[in-house]
């Protein structure tokens, strides 16, 4: 699914403000061994391209730095969803883990805390709703 994304013009990029993903997406997370997965689903179909462009694996890795080690991303345009694998996120996972969230159930909302730059008009509309 690797696609080259055209860099938005500088003026378009500057007319943004940071907004938490909770206003743009919902999510569910689970586990596979010591890896947590987070499925990030656009709340409206038109938000999906924004998620693809802004919620990069590098940014997600930075968001979770110190908490996970390695992030993979997969695209599901049919579901307007991105799937993230957060490696070494669960203190060993399964029965070994000592974490409250040993099965990664709430990494979902932890990702929704992340801020991405959102066009001003959209940010204003979402903040009102």
């Amino acid at each position: 699914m690797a696609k080259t994304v055209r860099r938005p013009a500088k003026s378009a990029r500057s007319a943004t403000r940071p907004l938490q993903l909770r206003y743009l997406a919902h999510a569910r997370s689970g586990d596979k061994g010591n890896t947590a997965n987070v499925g990030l689903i656009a709340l409206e179909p038109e938000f999906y391209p924004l998620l693809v462009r802004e919620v990069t694996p590098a940014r997600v890795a930075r968001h979770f730095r110190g908490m996970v080690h390695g992030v993979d991303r997969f695209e599901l345009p049919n579901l307007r969803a991105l799937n993230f694998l957060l490696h070494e996120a669960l203190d060993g996972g399964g029965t070994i883990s000592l974490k409250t969230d040993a099965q990664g159930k709430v990494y979902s909302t932890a990702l929704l805390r992340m801020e991405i730059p959102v066009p001003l008009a959209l940010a204003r509309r979402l903040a009102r709703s």
Partner: protein
Amino acid sequence: MTGQAGRPVRIAAGQGFWGDWLEAPVRQVQGGPIDYLMMDYLAEVTMSIMQKQKSRDPSAGYARDFVPLMERILPDVVAKGIRVTSNAGGVNPRGCAEAVLTVARKLSLPRKLRVGLVSGDDILGRLDDLIGRGHPLADMETGRPLSDVRDRVLSANAYLGMAPIVEALRGGADVVVTGRVTDTGLTLGPIFHEFGWSSEDWDKVAAGTVAGHIIECGAQASGGNLLKGWRSVKGLENPGFPIVEAAADGSFVVTKHPGTGGVVSVASVTEQLVYEMGDPRSYITPDGVADFTTIQLRPAGRDRVRVSGIRGGPRTPMLKVSIAYFWGYKAVGTLVYAWPDAYDKAKAADRVLRRRLADLGLTYDQILTEFVGVDATHGRLGGAPSAELPEVQLRVGVRARERAPVERFTREIAPLVLTGPPSVTGFAGGRPAVEEVVAYWPALVDRREIEPHVRVEILEA
């Protein structure tokens, strides 16, 4: 057969895990027409818990809850011609099947009950033979060969697919009891039996796999644990567990019984689809490989979502094996600290505790501290807490290969109440318990080593 007659086949989820809501299967058989009830009991570590129970009592080793549940629903199951598929058999499917037959006799049903028994997934007794003949059963995550932990293995089961379930249904089973059959196989079996599809029609296999994945976690597809618009999800005191209506073209509708709570929507189905997902293009099961990027969802009326367009590819030559082995010990202790400066007091207590453990010369594989109310769910992302926080729970966990350091840790929590920072409470539960840690070892094995050993028997009562 319903499927060949053109009517969709209705497969209802009754349990999403061992410990799920006990009323769900009863309401599924009584709340409206269904053809099949599927009940998934097995998570990754469940088999090792069952193996431990079986080692103490040879008649145990399966999901015991299943038997009283069957006692409640068998009269309806027989009267309405509903058929049940379940992996409740765990590491003792024969014991489970016989227990079901015993309750069937007690109920004096209007006709005989036929129970299909699927075995052959259990390879614990064959491990040395397999290793000796060059199957390393290496850990899929670390690559280490199983010989590294061979003497500590507690259970070993290959994941079987739909084939033995189809065979049991063809043999007339009313209830199919299996060991480690995949969650999705419990749904694929009924669909392939009804429509008579070839098990090498890969798109159909993928479609049935997706159907199975959607309902295998019970109400998690129908409003339970739904994040989007959670406040508007009504009636969760009586959640309608999901039902798949499978059509002859491979498409299906996800729905629930009328009059039940929860919701079936594109959002509820999508959240379940992404749950525990890896690479969406290759969702691998023993029956085939489904491509989740081909799934099309659209609303099809109230609490109805149509699922179509699913593509898939051939099954792989390997089967996954779920191995559990003894790892060591762990314990978790908690105390609650109150306002003012609750977080600072809890942090001070944690420092005291760790220093005492170090002074005693105790070492651990891991000591993990969480402050519930501050960082237990989202770590540092939750930000710095206010000094006005009403309370914080200190939660400290340790794990070690040896029992002694863990045992001693459990005796170091209570003393903090009188010898540590003030405003502490919440110690009514007593000393924390030392738990045995059984770890999971996922591996692969050539399916030709497993499939010839799979047996299907039909028992009657």
